[in-house]
């Protein structure tokens, strides 16, 4: 848990700035959603912006930025590994046509 001192550091002004930035990033996402571009590029841009937004929420609203480095080093790699594990069966989709009985 964060200490009282760290809470004092993250003032109302910082929270409002973060919120404004989150709203701005949402508008940027909507702007890109209506642009003509390849689907792959759009997925990369939209997911990249979403990762930025979630990082801001975790860092400031969930006060991960003000926590001990050891906690950050425990949580972030675990999250990355978890996401990788979710996609562990993804390569199977490439050979799904060969697996279909004829």
């Amino acid at each position: 848990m964060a200490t009282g001192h760290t809470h004092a550091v993250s003032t109302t002004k910082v929270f409002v700035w973060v919120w404004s930035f989150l709203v701005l990033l949402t508008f940027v996402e909507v702007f890109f959603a209506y642009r003509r571009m390849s689907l792959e590029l759009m997925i990369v841009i939209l997911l990249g912006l979403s990762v930025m937004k979630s990082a801001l929420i975790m860092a400031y609203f969930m006060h991960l930025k003000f926590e001990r480095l050891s906690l950050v080093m425990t949580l972030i790699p675990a999250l990355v590994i978890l996401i990788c594990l979710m996609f562990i069966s993804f390569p199977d989709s490439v050979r799904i046509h060969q697996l279909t009985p004829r």
Partner: protein
Amino acid sequence: MTACLLSSSLTMVMAVAAASQGERKRAVRFILLTMAGGVLFDVLHIHEWLGLIHEGVTPSSNPWGVPLFGATFFGLTGLHMTHVTIGVIYLGVIAIGFGRSKFSAEDVEVSGLYWHFVDLVWMFILPMVYLLSNRI
């Protein structure tokens, strides 16, 4: 809907800050504002669901494209809406408990973490379900 959730995250973080400074009334007021954001999100979401159902989109059908969209849309947004609803109830319990000095500032902080998590999930549902759906 995104504005509701983002704004409710801001009020929640204000509630946590007020609670940690021992300002109980202010914290409870901010928690109530957060709950209002959650309820407004649910109302807008149900309105959207009813509109889509009226147009013929169900978990097994989609008049505009692949039927799987209906299942994915209702599955993802339904689970998220359930979490928001549970969050509103959770925050209500915390607001009452904290107002009566039965819960500590740490309890408010933990409920805040839950609420931000719900907001965080929406940050991925918005592009994957809403913004990309017109391209598939």
